[in-house]
C-alpha cells in the first residue's frame, strides 16, 4: 500500500498547475459556480479546453491507437481535480462518457469520426437520459425511435439536458423496442442538435444556470449513428453513469470550502470570542474535516480500483457519490450556520463571509444529491449490488 504520489505524478501535477497559472482567466475559472463551472459553454472556455487538448491531456488514459497515452487513471484524476479546484471547465462528458463508451462499444466509423475531435476539443456534447416521467427510473424512458429506411425517426421529449443550447451533438437514449422489458429496449444514438425537428427550451435553476427541455419531432438519424448494439443502450448508459458519478462530482471544491470554513473560524470573532475557540464549532470542524479526508481517500480507492483494468468499480462509484454529495450538503449547512447573518448575502457582496461561498454553495450544489442519480438511488445500487438484496425502490 502506498498513499504517496509517484515522482512522475507529482511532476505532472506541478506541470498542470503551471499551465493553469499561465492560462488564468476569470472568465474561464470561477470557483463560486461550483458544479456548473465544469461546463464548456463559452468561446473562451472552448479555447482553453483546446489548449488542454494540445497538451495531450484529453484522453490521457485512452489507447495510443486512438491518440491517447495509455496513462493510469490517476493522471486524469489529478488533472480533473486541478481544474475543479480553480472552478474551471473539466474533461467531463466528451472524454469521460462519450469517448470511453465509443472506445468500448462503438463502431470503427464512430471511433474515426468522434475520437480525434474529442481529443482536440472540437466538439461539444449534450447528454440525454432524463425524461419528465423517467427521472430516477431512467430505464422507463419513452422517447420513441421507429425504423425508417436506413435509420430511425425520433419522437418525444428529454429534460435536464444542460448543454443542449450550445452543444453540437446529442448523446441520447431512445426506446427502439417497446415490447421488450423496459431496460432491454433502449438504444443509444448520436444526433446532431442543429437538425430540423429539434426544439430546445431553457429551464432556469436556483443556481441561476440554464438547463433545457429538448423536444423531438420526427427527427431522423442514420444507422451510422447508432452507438454499439441495438437495444443494449441501457447497459452502456449504466456503465457511463458509474464513470459520471465519479468524474462529475469532483472532490476539490469540497476540500476548498472546508479550507474556507476552517480559515473563517480561525480568524473571525463573534461577541469578542474567536469562533475557533468555541468548542461546538471546533467539534463541527473536526467532524467535517474527518469526513473530507474520508471522501478524499474513498475517491483515491476508486481511482486505484479503476486502474487495474476490468469493469468500472460500480458500487465504489455509488459509495463515493453518495458520501461526497451528502458531505457537500452538510458542509453547506455548516457554512451557512457558522457564517452567521452574513451567510444569507449573495455571492460577490463585500460583506458575505467565505467569499460568498456559504450562499452560492447552497444554491449551486442543490444538484449534488439529485443529479447523476439521487442519493436514494445510490443506496439502492449499494444494497442490490453489494449486499445482494432484492430489487425494490
Amino acid at each position, binding site marked *: 500500500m502506498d498513499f504517496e504520489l509517484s515522482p512522475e505524478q507529482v511532476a505532472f501535477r506541478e506541470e498542470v498547475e503551471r499551465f493553469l497559472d499561465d492560462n488564468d482567466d476569470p472568465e474561464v475559472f470561477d470557483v463560486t459556480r461550483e458544479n456548473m463551472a465544469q461546463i464548456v459553454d463559452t468561446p473562451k472556455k472552448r479555447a482553453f479546453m483546446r489548449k488542454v487538448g494540445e497538451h495531450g491531456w484529453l484522453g490521457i488514459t485512452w489507447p495510443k491507437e486512438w491518440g491517447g497515452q495509455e496513462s493510469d487513471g490517476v493522471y486524469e484524476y489529478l488533472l480533473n481535480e486541478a481544474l475543479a479546484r480553480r472552478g474551471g471547465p473539466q474533461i467531463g462528458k466528451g472524454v469521460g462518457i462519450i469517448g470511453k463508451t465509443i472506445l468500448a462499444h462503438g463502431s470503427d466509423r464512430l471511433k474515426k469520426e468522434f475520437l480525434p475531435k474529442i481529443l482536440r476539443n472540437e466538439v461539444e456534447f449534450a447528454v440525454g437520459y432524463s425524461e419528465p416521467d423517467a427521472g430516477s427510473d431512467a430505464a422507463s424512458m419513452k422517447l420513441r425511435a421507429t425504423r425508417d429506411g436506413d435509420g430511425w425517426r425520433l419522437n418525444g421529449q428529454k429534460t435536464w439536458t444542460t448543454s443542449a443550447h450550445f452543444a453540437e451533438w446529442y448523446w441520447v437514449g431512445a426506446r427502439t423496442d417497446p415490447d421488450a422489458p423496459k431496460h432491454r429496449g433502449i438504444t443509444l444514438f448520436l444526433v446532431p442538435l442543429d437538425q430540423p425537428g429539434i426544439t430546445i427550451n431553457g*429551464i432556469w435553476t436556483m443556481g441561476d444556470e440554464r438547463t433545457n427541455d429538448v423536444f423531438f419531432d420526427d427527427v431522423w438519424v442514420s444507422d451510422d449513428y447508432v452507438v454499439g448494439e441495438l437495444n443494449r443502450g441501457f447497459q452502456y448508459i449504466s456503465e457511463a453513469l458509474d464513470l459520471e458519478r465519479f468524474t462529475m462530482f469532483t472532490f476539490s471544491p469540497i476540500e476548498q470550502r472546508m479550507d474556507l470554513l476552517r480559515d473563517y473560524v480561525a480568524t473571525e470573532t463573534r461577541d469578542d470570542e474567536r469562533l475557533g475557540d468555541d468548542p461546538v464549532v471546533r467539534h463541527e470542524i473536526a467532524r467535517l474535516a474527518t469526513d473530507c479526508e474520508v471522501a478524499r481517500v474513498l475517491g483515491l480507492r476508486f481511482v486505484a480500483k479503476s486502474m487495474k483494468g476490468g469493469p468500472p468499480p460500480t458500487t465504489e462509484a455509488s459509495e463515493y457519490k453518495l458520501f461526497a454529495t451528502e458531505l457537500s450538503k452538510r458542509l453547506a449547512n455548516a457554512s451557512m450556520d457558522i457564517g452567521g447573518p*452574513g451567510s444569507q448575502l*449573495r455571492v460577490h457582496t463585500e460583506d458575505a463571509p467565505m467569499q460568498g461561498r456559504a450562499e452560492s454553495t447552497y444554491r449551486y450544489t442543490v444538484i449534488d444529491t439529485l443529479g447523476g442519480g439521487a442519493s436514494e438511488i445510490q443506496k439502492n445500487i449499494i444494497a442490490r449490488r453489494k449486499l445482494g438484496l432484492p430489487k425494490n425502490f
Partner: protein
Amino acid sequence: MRFAFDEDHVLFRTTVRDFFAKECTPAAVREAWSSHRGWSTERWTKLAALGVTGLTVPESHGGLGMDELSLVLVLEESGRAGLPEPIVDTTAVGAPLLAEVGSDDLRERWLRPVAAGQAILGVGLAGYPYVDHAGSADLLLLQRGDEVHAVAPDQVTMFEQPSLDGARRLATVEWEPRVGTRLADGERAAAAVESALDRGALATAAQLLGVSQQLINLAVQHARHRVQFGQPIGAFQAVKHMLADALLRLELARPVVYRAAYSVARDEPERALDVSMAKAYASDAATLASRVALQTHGAIGYTWEHDLHLWMKRGWALAASWGDAAWHRARVGAAVLPVP
C-alpha cells in the same frame, strides 16, 4: 395551565390565512421578487384594514393592542404564504420598540400611520445589522453602542446587501448619531435592544414554522402524485421516512415557539432562553424541511418555474437572521451553564 390558543386567536389566524390564500399567492410572491421595492403597498394597506399591521400598536394609537400570542399565529401564516411585506421589522419589532422608548411626539407621529399601513419601520441592531426593507422604510430605529436612535432615512447612507431571498431587501446603514435622534441610552436602551432582538428572533422563528409547513406540504403533494418505478414515490420508505423526520422536527419546534411567544408577551424572566431555544429549533427545522422538500421533488425543485425555491430561500434567509441556530444555542448554553 391551558396550553392552547383562545378562540379569538384561532379566529384571527383563520381570517389572516384566508386573506393570504387570496392575496398572497405564489404568483404574488414572485411579482414582489421582481418589483422595485420588493413588496406591495396595496397588500400592506389591506393587511392594515384587517388590523395586522397595527396588531402590536396600543389601542390609544389606533392599533389593536394585542400581544405576541396573537401575533405568533399571524406570523406563522405569513411564513406559510411567503409574505414579502415588512411584518417582522414593522409590526413585530419596530412598533413595540417605538412604543417602549419613543417620545410622546414620535409615538404620536408614527404609531398611527404604522397601524393604518401608511408607514413602515426599519430596525438595525448591533447584533443583527442587516435592515430589511431599509430602502422603503419611513423611519429607522437604530442602535449605536448603548444608545437607541430614531433616524430619518434621508439622514443615513445605505449600502445594499443583496440577499439570496429576492423579497428581502437588506441594507447596512451608516449615520451620525445626534442628540436630537436619541431615544434611550444606558440600561434603558440595553433592555430595549435585548427585547427587540428577542422579538425579532421570535418573529422569524414563527415565520420559519410556516415556511417549514409549506415546504413539507409541497413535498407531500409531490410525493403523492409523482410516479416512479410504477408507484407514487410517497409509497417508498426512503421518501416517507425523510418526510416524517422533517414533519417531526417541525412539530417539535412548534410548541417551543408558542411557549417563547408566551414568555415575550408576559416578559417572563426566562424570556431570552425560551426565545433562543425556539429560534434555534425553528431554524434547524426549516433547514431540514428545505433539504427534504428538495430531495423529494428532485430536479424540478431547484428550477425557477417551480415555487419550491421561493420557500427554500426564505427558510435559509430567516434561519440566518436575528441570530442563527448556532448563536442562539450558544445563548442557551450560557444561560443553562453560566461561565463562573
